């Protein structure tokens, strides 16, 4: 892709981000750089047409990030690396989960839970994690067909003493 096309795309994306829901949780992104864009060639299930995303750390809760579409300002999800000090699946150890994922996901990738928040608890999608390769700036959302994984698993707090910083 030539530089002019990339520049034009970034101008459009900057306008989209001005309306982006990520701002509810993170600092405003003043300038997008082409290397910030993570490309999902097949989109993600339910949003197959959205291919370009950005991730932004959440203020004061840095392992949590917003996965924000650059094509649709209202499409943003909260993600968390599967290895973190906050949450783990309630029904299995993180080690077991990693061993399940390792059969289908290359270790070159970073793997994230997509988190869902209600007023009282947090659930995580262990069946379809978000996979991002920061070297190639690409990602995908595989569906792991395993009976112990769910799209809406309960999450348990790892360290209740954590101050979240």
């Amino acid at each position, binding site marked *: 892709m030539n530089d002019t096309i990339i520049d034009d795309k970034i101008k459009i994306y900057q306008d989209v981000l001005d309306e982006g829901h990520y701002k509810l949780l993170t600092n405003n992104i003043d300038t997008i750089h082409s290397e910030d864009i993570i490309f999902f060639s097949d989109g993600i299930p339910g949003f197959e047409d959205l291919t370009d995303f950005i991730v932004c750390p959440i203020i004061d809760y840095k392992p949590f990030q917003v996965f924000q579409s650059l094509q649709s300002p209202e499409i*943003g999800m909260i993600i968390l690396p599967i290895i973190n000090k906050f949450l783990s699946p309630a029904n299995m150890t993180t080690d077991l989960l990693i061993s399940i994922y390792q059969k289908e996901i290359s270790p070159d990738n970073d793997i994230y839970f997509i988190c869902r928040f209600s007023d009282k608890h947090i659930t995580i999608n262990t069946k379809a994690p978000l996979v991002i390769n920061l070297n190639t700036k690409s990602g995908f959302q595989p569906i792991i067909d395993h009976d112990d994984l769910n799209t809406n698993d309960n999450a348990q707090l790892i360290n209740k003493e954590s101050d979240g910083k």
Partner: protein
Amino acid sequence: MLVLSRKKGEKIIIGKDIEICVLDVDKNLLKIGINAPKSTKIYRSELYDAVQKSNASSIFTNKPDLPSLLK
């Protein structure tokens, strides 16, 4: 929708590199085998539907109360 009748052991070819073979037929259960490039994602539709719904409901519209939820 294209409708084809196939017997056990017969195949269907889709494009140049996807092959579907009827392995077994038993009352209401049809067992099929699929040969496709590794890059072709193949899912049971109910699984894909569940992930679509989960993704749609994971979009946040309000600021979650992280300090309380992570206490």
